């Protein structure tokens, strides 16, 4: 019935959480991300000539940015809401990552995933596109997006983490459960990554994203070691640290930013704690499953040696019940993991991206300050030259002043723009976050309900057997 619900809601984005179960798929979870989109056409990102690897496609025209006073730079203006309503109907895209295939042998082997995009949006050339991508392709996409957009204050969804250990097992060809689980975990993470990326109105239109989703051949992303998601963020954070260590302390005149930064700091801490707890819960439940299976065997043996017939039969039944419960535990562990733990992990990384964006703003401010300092110096130099009789130098000085005045203006505009972008991004992020968790928690509770219903079934079947012991 859940599937019926979701197919009916064709205006929604769907994210498939397919929990790994090597027996059968018990859970097919649809996570609905935010239904509403932000304005798609207003405030297109100001494009600075930024370099992305590979063939650079069409650059969209730069729309002039409106410098508005602080008061207007709040999240929702009536115009924006209206546009949102319009765009809701046109935002329709489904992405799935599936069919992992191993290519090659030994240490050069890699996994290739099928990326299927179904959409009615006009920016795509077809309704349905299917391409093959490998992990480094995803990392490459993220590095391009991060380098293009992070400095403007956009929260670019982080790519999944690299894992040397996990991949080595797969490369070496171990067909055991843990490498199968690893591939499934990664597949699921890649899918969530792409969905989050296209959910972002600006990123959806980005040519690199479109190329990634549509083009059958993609130039190999180079130096992804350096530019993995975590790597990018580390670079960003290092820059931020450098900024903080500078003697220039940003005067935060905007209380909103101060408050939000503190909030995200707290969230980061809490989220990591919770994530760690849930990860350990998953471990415990898996161990419980093992212990239950072991007990079931032991109870069966005990039943065999019991010489009272009815009791012997009851003990064997008990063993069967415990075996079924073991399976329940395994399935529940999967749900714990794929529903909650992975989502929490995603948000830990997302919060890091958010914090990175705040740091970018600080960096922008610092740059602005630097420009002002330079301008001041140039003015002082010019003033001095006024009294010296060096017309060439004077002209040069005047030129330089004009240059730096321009830079200061640009710096201020940049700062305004990034502040505005961040406000909007954070608003969108917080809305999405609530919806994300809400939907996942409901799914999780439903999984818990299912488990209890099964438990009741098993014990109800056992009770008459126990009573039959005479």
């Amino acid at each position, binding site marked *: 019935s859940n599937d019926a619900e979701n197919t009916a809601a064709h205006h929604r984005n769907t994210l498939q959480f397919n929990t790994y179960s090597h027996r059968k798929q018990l859970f097919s979870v649809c996570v609905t991300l935010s239904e509403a989109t932000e304005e798609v056409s207003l405030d297109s990102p100001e494009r600075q000539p930024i370099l992305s690897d590979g063939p650079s496609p069409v650059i969209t025209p730069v729309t002039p940015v409106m410098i508005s006073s602080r008061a207007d730079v709040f999240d929702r203006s009536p115009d924006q809401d209206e546009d949102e309503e319009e765009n809701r109907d046109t935002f329709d895209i489904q992405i799935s990552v599936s069919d992992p295939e191993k290519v090659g042998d030994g240490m050069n082997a890699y996994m290739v995933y099928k990326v299927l995009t179904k959409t009615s949006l006009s920016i795509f050339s077809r309704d349905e596109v299917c391409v093959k991508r490998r992990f480094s392709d995803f990392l490459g996409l993220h590095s391009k997006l991060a380098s293009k957009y992070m400095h403007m204050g956009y929260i670019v969804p982080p790519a999944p983490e690299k894992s040397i250990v996990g991949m080595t097992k797969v490369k070496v060809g171990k067909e055991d459960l843990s490498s199968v689980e690893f591939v499934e975990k990664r597949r699921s993470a890649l899918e969530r990554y792409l969905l989050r990326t296209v959910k972002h109105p600006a990123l959806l239109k980005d040519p690199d994203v479109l190329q990634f989703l549509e083009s059958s051949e993609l130039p190999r992303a180079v130096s992804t070691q350096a530019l993995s998601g975590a790597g990018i963020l580390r670079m960003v954070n290092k820059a931020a640290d450098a900024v903080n260590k500078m003697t220039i302390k940003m005067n935060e005149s905007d209380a909103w930013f101060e408050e939000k930064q503190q909030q995200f700091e707290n969230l980061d801490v809490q989220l990591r704690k919770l994530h760690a707890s849930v990860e350990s819960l998953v471990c415990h439940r898996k161990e419980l499953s093992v212990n*239950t299976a*072991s007990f079931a065997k032991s*109870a069966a043996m005990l039943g065999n040696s019991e010489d009272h017939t009815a*009791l012997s039969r009851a003990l064997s039944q008990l063993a069967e019940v415990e075996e079924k419960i073991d399976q329940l535990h395994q399935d529940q562990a999967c749900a714990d993991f794929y529903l909650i733990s992975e989502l929490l992990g995603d948000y830990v990384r997302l919060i890091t991206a958010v914090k990175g964006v705040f740091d970018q703003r600080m960096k922008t401010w610092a740059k602005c300050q630097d420009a002002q300092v330079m301008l001041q110096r140039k003015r002082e130099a010019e003033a001095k030259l006024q009294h010296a009789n060096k017309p060439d130098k004077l002209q040069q000085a005047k030129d330089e002043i004009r240059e730096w005045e321009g830079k200061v203006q640009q710096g201020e505009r940049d700062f305004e723009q990034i502040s505005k972008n961040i406000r909007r991004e954070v608003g969108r992020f917080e809305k999405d976050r609530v919806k994300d968790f809400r939907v996942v928690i409901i799914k999780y*509770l439903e999984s818990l309900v299912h488990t209890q219903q099964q438990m009741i079934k098993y014990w109800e079947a056992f009770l008459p057997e126990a009573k039959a012991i005479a």
Partner: protein
Amino acid sequence: MQEGLDDGPDFLSEEDRGPRAVNVDLQTDATLQVDISDALSERDKVKFTVHTKSTLPNFKQNEFSVVRQHEEFIWLHDSFVENEEYAGYIIPPAPPKPDFDASREKLQKLGEGEGSMTKEEFTKMKQELEAEYLAIFKKTVAMHEVFLCRVAAHPVLRKDLNFHVFLEYNQDLSVRGKNKKEKLEDFFKNVVKSADGVLVAGVKDVDDFFEHEKTFLLEYHNRVKDASAKSDRMISKNAFCVWPSVNGVKSLTCFLFCSLINRFFLKVSELFEKTRKIEARVAADEDLKLADLLKYYLRESQAAKDLLYRRGRALADYENANKALDKARAKNKDVLQAETTQQVCCQKFEKISESAKQELIDFKTRRVAAFRKNLVELAELELKHAKGNLQLLQSCLGVLKGDT
């Protein structure tokens, strides 16, 4: 649905008054009723108040109480084991030593970590640990009580003088624990016994009943041991499989409080608190009905094995005495002495055999009844808790889904 959620396992609940049938099924006998009416846990010992009601003429009063400690129970048990007269009976297994170390350690750690957590967290954890302590305490009381009741229910053992002293003498019995030398002696005795036991077990018994019992008990005992260990592991692991504790719940709440809709997540965190309590009850009940049952029958089956061993020993002695008699007759030397020895051995063996047969039959009856009772109760409790959980989850889901 949630009544009694905060209590520990109801070991001493109303339904268990009267014939104390916690793990075993016993015959009531109005002429002698024993129970542990109170218990006090001090620093490193537990003091049990043993309460007796009796119409037997042996006692000075009809109703009286004394205070006993664990060592005195062990003394009583050992006195039965060492008494040759009781060789033909299954001696009720001694209660295990009260062990609060783990629980105490946890409480101590909590005390040390008090500074690092909020008052609310501290109170919650303290409550949980205290409930755990209380559960262990109730269990050890029940174990000691079961031992006494088994003795009181046994037609022969209940008349034992030491038992009466134990029940009535209101001074300290001055029973010291075994010293090193005695413990070493015990150790060697057990080694000899096991070696002997193997030899005795190897001899095929003429009597089909005992032959069957021997084979059965050997295998059964091992399997119960295995099942007991595995059930312990499973149940203790179950205790960890709860949604993250106070800290974790608070984190989730904090995280999501910062967002726009608090009500939703507040309900969720309330839900997890409640289901956590239910999970704790499930673990406690499983422990009680399953793990303790298996542990008890591990000890009882050992006691039954010991009985068989003693009988086997008596049989071996009897057979040796026969051989000695034949030899004596052949040599015509010390015949009378040999005849006497042979007769004594014969009587001893037959006495043991007769009572052993009945004991083993009773053992089976008790065992089947105890398993039935506990398995039924286990299933009923699992159902009760699963239904409780389900109701909580469903009602919460109903509210949350409607709360768009």
